[in-house]
């Protein structure tokens, strides 16, 4: 979950680990991760194996990949800062992002049932709404995925620099290269497999650090210190935090509902596994921002300086656990970064192959050719992320702020498209375009905290009116047939629309 909404972090602090130790850890993890990618890649020779791991992922790996992907470096690094600046509500607000996983749980089952041979979210929208809906959706999806990929790459360079003093360019290059390599060899098998290990490391690391804090200070002391020195952080009516709660929740819904990162996993999971995995993933993700946030709240009671709130979590860990704590933080942050970057590489490559390239080839594309395109697109996306991230333009991460209204405007067309046969192409296209534009206008004229809200509200109204005025009568069963480009039929097989005429 990316909460850049309040706290565009400058990441400036004293390293907690030597550069030498950082390089050793990077080399170790790089070798292990790439080795695992090659090992799992034995199963990824076909495109189906590479893109959706053979569509047979079991509950353990499915649950873990939902947890690990939703934990970005921001969850572990910024949650303590969020709590330190917005108090208890800040941590609770962050944890509401798990509601997106709960809401997506039944949708994942529906997606798998409707499109047992599907690959991407854009493919669903194209076959459900035709080009009228898929054009804005593809633009939003690519914008969001590529911006997120670049910002995660930048975060990699900055965080490794903060934690160990490794130069930004070196850290960023290593993180991006390692992720590209193991995703390239192992595809979705490597992404989901490493996600399992990463989720265990992250959860275990958080428990160790939080327990270490509790051996040094009582929760009552933390409460007392906050009540005396920073009572606002314990306030139950902290307006900014309450607004953050609703905004995060909506952003989370939009982010998960539209992003191919989550759809590709729904396609990869064995039938019947998706709803359980996403619901369980939400339950297991829910405490992560709260536990990480507690590190921020405990810092004043522990006497740890908070002049640089963006690194309060690592500082607490390193102060209490010494070098071991610093190692642990480095590993947790590396895992958080890798679990997001690999997912974005794989899911965005699916978009490039299935939604940018394949529709232009009449008569469809062979499995081998798609497999080869996937390789090139992953290398291309990695190179693009590296080139842009190398410039280290500080304001770039703020571009992701704009994504709030854009992804918010996709909520209703996606939900309606999955469950409501009256939902029509005109309504979906108009909802996404108007929601995005008016949401962005609200973002710039009123403030960040209304961007997602206005985007989702306008989109919902336009979508409702559009589907009422120009209703469709979509045949959901048609989605189970092979896609247009693969069986040479029309672009939108279930189209019995009144609106599209």
């Amino acid at each position: 979950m990316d909460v850049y909404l309040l706290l565009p972090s400058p990441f400036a602090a004293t390293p907690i680990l030597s550069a030498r130790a950082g390089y050793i850890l990077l080399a170790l993890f790089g070798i292990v991760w790439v080795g695992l990618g090659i090992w799992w890649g034995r199963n990824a020779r076909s495109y189906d194996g590479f893109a959706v791991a053979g569509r047979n992922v079991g509950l353990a790996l499915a649950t873990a990949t939902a947890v690990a992907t939703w934990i970005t470096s921001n969850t572990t690094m910024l949650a303590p800062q969020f709590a330190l600046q917005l108090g208890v509500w800040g941590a609770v607000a962050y944890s509401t992002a798990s509601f997106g996983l709960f809401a997506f749980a039944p949708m994942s089952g529906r997606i798998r049932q409707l499109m047992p041979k599907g690959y991407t979210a854009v493919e669903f929208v194209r076959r459900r709404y035709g080009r009228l809906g898929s054009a804005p959706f593809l633009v939003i999806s690519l914008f969001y995925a590529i911006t997120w990929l670049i910002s995660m790459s930048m975060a990699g360079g900055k965080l490794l620099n903060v934690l160990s003093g490794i130069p930004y360019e070196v850290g960023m290059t290593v993180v991006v290269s390692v992720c590209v390599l193991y995703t390239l060899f192992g595809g979705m098998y490597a992404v989901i497999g490493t996600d399992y290990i990463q989720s265990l490391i992250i959860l275990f690391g958080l428990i160790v650090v939080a327990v270490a804090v509790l051996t040094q200070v009582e929760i009552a002391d933390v409460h007392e210190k906050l009540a005396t020195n920073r009572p606002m952080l314990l306030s139950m009516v902290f307006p900014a935090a309450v607004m953050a709660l609703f905004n995060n929740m909506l952003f989370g819904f939009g982010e998960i509902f539209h992003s191919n990162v989550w759809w590709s996993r729904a396609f990869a999971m064995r039938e019947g596994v998706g709803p359980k995995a996403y619901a369980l993933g939400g339950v297991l993700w829910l405490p992560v921002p709260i536990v990480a946030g507690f590190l921020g709240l405990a810092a004043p009671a522990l006497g740890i300086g908070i002049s640089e709130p963006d690194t309060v979590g690592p500082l607490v860990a390193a102060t209490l656990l010494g070098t071991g704590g610093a190692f642990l933080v480095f590993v947790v942050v590396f895992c958080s970064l890798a679990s997001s970057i690999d997912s974005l590489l794989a899911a965005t490559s699916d978009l490039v192959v299935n939604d940018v390239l394949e529709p232009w080839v009449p008569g469809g594309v062979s499995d081998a050719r798609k497999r080869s395109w996937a390789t090139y697109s992953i290398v291309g996306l990695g190179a693009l992320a590296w080139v842009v991230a190398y410039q280290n333009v500080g304001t770039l991460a703020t571009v992701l702020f704009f994504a709030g209204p854009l992804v918010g405007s996709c909520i209703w067309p996606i939900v309606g498209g999955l469950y409501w046969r009256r939902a029509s192409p005109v309504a979906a296209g108009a909802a996404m375009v108007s929601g995005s534009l008016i949401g962005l206008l609200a973002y710039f004229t009123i403030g960040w905290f209304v961007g997602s809200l206005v985007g989702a509200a306008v989109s919902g109204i336009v979508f409702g009116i559009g589907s009422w005025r120009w209703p469709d009568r979509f045949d959901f069963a048609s989605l189970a047939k092979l896609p247009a480009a693969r069986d040479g039929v029309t672009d939108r097989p279930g189209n019995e629309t009144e609106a599209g005429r």
Partner: protein
Amino acid sequence: MMFPLWALQVLVIGGIALCGVGVVTLIVFLIIDSKDKQIW
């Protein structure tokens, strides 16, 4: 009006316990999946 101490305790202890449950759950699920040859 401030968050009472018990609420903070529930959040923190509950959060750590849930993280622990998460680790155990993921390991148990993997064992079950591997027994049934259902990992992938």
